[in-house]
């Protein structure tokens, strides 16, 4: 039963990702390029009218905003609204499960941690440098990493062989399929179409 559910999840996630093929770039909120960093700092300085100049310089500078904005941007790549469209509702729950297992039980699982760290690095590179790589390759990299993580998460969740858990995953699979059927174009909220 577990294998069947995992295979079904794999197919649905793959189908969700394949839809993104008709785009050519992620939308702007996935990026935090040096230009955006500069613009945000300038905006903050301009809006700080009335505050002491020294305080403004100490608080609103590129160094601090790089970290702050960088973390905020990173959250976009783990966001439920993005993940449920990119790898489907089932995929999103798989990611939730794997994060949960990493934080609670599988502390020593080097390979899974490596995947997470790699995803963080890849998303940071994409967001900050916007590398000139063919979009499909980006999809392959992001898609395979997230799908792998999600499937491991689902696998871990289904390990106890409980009927309740099987039923819950089956329910999520149905929701994912229905979401794909009724809202096939929802990915357009996150990427620019060709």
């Amino acid at each position, binding site marked *: 039963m577990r294998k069947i559910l995992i295979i079904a999840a794999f197919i649905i996630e793959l189908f969700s990702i394949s839809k993104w093929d008709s785009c050519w770039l992620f939308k702007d909120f996935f990026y935090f390029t040096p230009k955006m960093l500069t613009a945000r700092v300038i905006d903050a300085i301009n*809006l700080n009218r009335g505050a002491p100049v020294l305080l403004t310089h100490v*608080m609103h500078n590129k160094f601090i905003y790089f970290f702050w904005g960088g973390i905020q941007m990173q959250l976009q790549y783990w966001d*439920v*609204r993005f993940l449920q469209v990119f790898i489907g509702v089932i995929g999103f729950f798989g990611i939730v499960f794997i994060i949960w297992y990493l934080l609670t039980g599988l502390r020593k699982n080097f390979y899974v941690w490596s995947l997470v760290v790699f995803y963080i690095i890849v998303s940071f590179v994409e967001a900050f440098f916007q590398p000139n790589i063919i979009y499909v390759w980006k999809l392959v990299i992001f898609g395979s990493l997230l799908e792998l993580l999600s499937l491991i998460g689902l696998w871990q969740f289904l390990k106890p062989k409980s009927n309740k858990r099987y039923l819950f995953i089956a329910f999520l699979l149905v*929701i994912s399929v*229905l979401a794909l059927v009724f*809202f096939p174009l929802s990915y357009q909220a996150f990427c620019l179409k060709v």
Partner: protein
Amino acid sequence: MKLPFVILLFGVIFLGAILRFYNISNNPPGLYLDEVSIGLNAYDILKTGKDQFGISYPLAFKSFGDYKMPIYIYLVSLSMLIFGKTEFAVRFPSALAGTLTVLVIFFLLKELLENDKKTKQIANVLALIGSAVLAILPWHLQFSRGGFENSVALLFYSTGWLLGIRYWKTKKWLYLLGIALCFCFAEYTYQLYRIVSPLTFFIVAVILFFKEKKLFKNVLLAFIIFIILSLPLILFSFTLHGQERFFETSAFGQNLFSKGIIGIFRDGIIFVNNYLSYFSLTYFFHLGDQINRHQVQNFGLLYLWQLPFLVAGLYFLAKTKNALIRFVTIFFLLVGPIAPALVLPSPHTLRFLSGTIPSTLLTTLGIYQIYVARIKWRKFVFVVVSAIVAVSFIYFLDYYFVQYPNQSQIFWAGACKQVAFEIHKDSTTYSHIVVDKNLGCIPEYFSFYIPSIPLSYVGTSWIKPKTWENQKVLYVRPFYGNSEPANLEKNIRLTNVDRDIFAQLYSL
């Protein structure tokens, strides 16, 4: 509680009050549409006992496109009795409720943590930390400082929960009556609680039916009292006016729900999508719901430092044997977004204001979880985390009190307030004051700020009539591209980065 602790608690409440009351007349930088409507209705009730439309002490107040629940408006009436017809009076009940919610959270956390052997000994300290977190929480501050009814409704709702826990522990009847009253008041304060309050009763009753049949009977009785008290509102909900707001904002189109099996499935998916959007990380920590009135731009609803504590708090909930704290936190977390997910836009920060409660609870539990974990260099970690919390708070103060008034003026109709004051300044020197209908300030704004000055509203192509030739006319119109036209008296500029011109005053 010992005296030093009481002083500390008082300090936290005082901090919460300062943050909520400081300069609320000018920041947010103007009254938004709903606040103006509340203010005008409240003033009319105070002076005549009738609302803007001549109805005596109504149960629901007609507003812009919907009907408002009455309690907040009556509270503003009381506030206007003391402070007059001012912005402060409109926002006072909300700010006061926000401050009191900080106190309620202290007692709520105390009750919950005292229910467990492990946390019992430091329940007071943790509860104090929790109330301090809520006192400085950007999300809660934002809505306490505006004239938002939900701020008061949340006070009633969380007090209802506090009384519920007291009832659970003491089994005293008085608390049951208190719950019914609080949930009922919440309903009469903000639309959303017409769903949330009965839903809360229903879910708690179902759980008790299976777990504690003795308590179930009592809760059912409280529910009946609640229903009796809610009867006028229930009857109102079945009228066209009562359903107007829901149909306007429904996530499922013009009908209550779509028809047919396919329609039901489609609505189900819309609901799931909306519901999940309330758990978005960018929503909490970066962009919010992107309605400028609901958060400071780019700051998020919660502090970034809360993220690891939220995760640790979830871990605590998974491992704890304290079923009560687990139930209350998860209830707030999972049931809170149900009603807001039925309507659009989603996520909507105001409608999910109850989310401030679980985020505060989880942060506090997370702090406890990390505190008891075996961490190396504990003191060093404590100093670093404290520094990050302090710096984040300073950033929030800068963002909210320095940047926000400049950045958000247009969204709070602050420029309309500026125009009203300019008109007021010069009103005696002009025989007529004429306002272009396209200015972007509805007449109600001027009725609130300058009710005694008669204004004429005209179209864009208006020219001074010949009969007024020898009379001085002040003509107010939006900026149509020429920054220094003939007869210009003054440009009214926004306080945004580009200092855009919002309106132009002509002396004709």
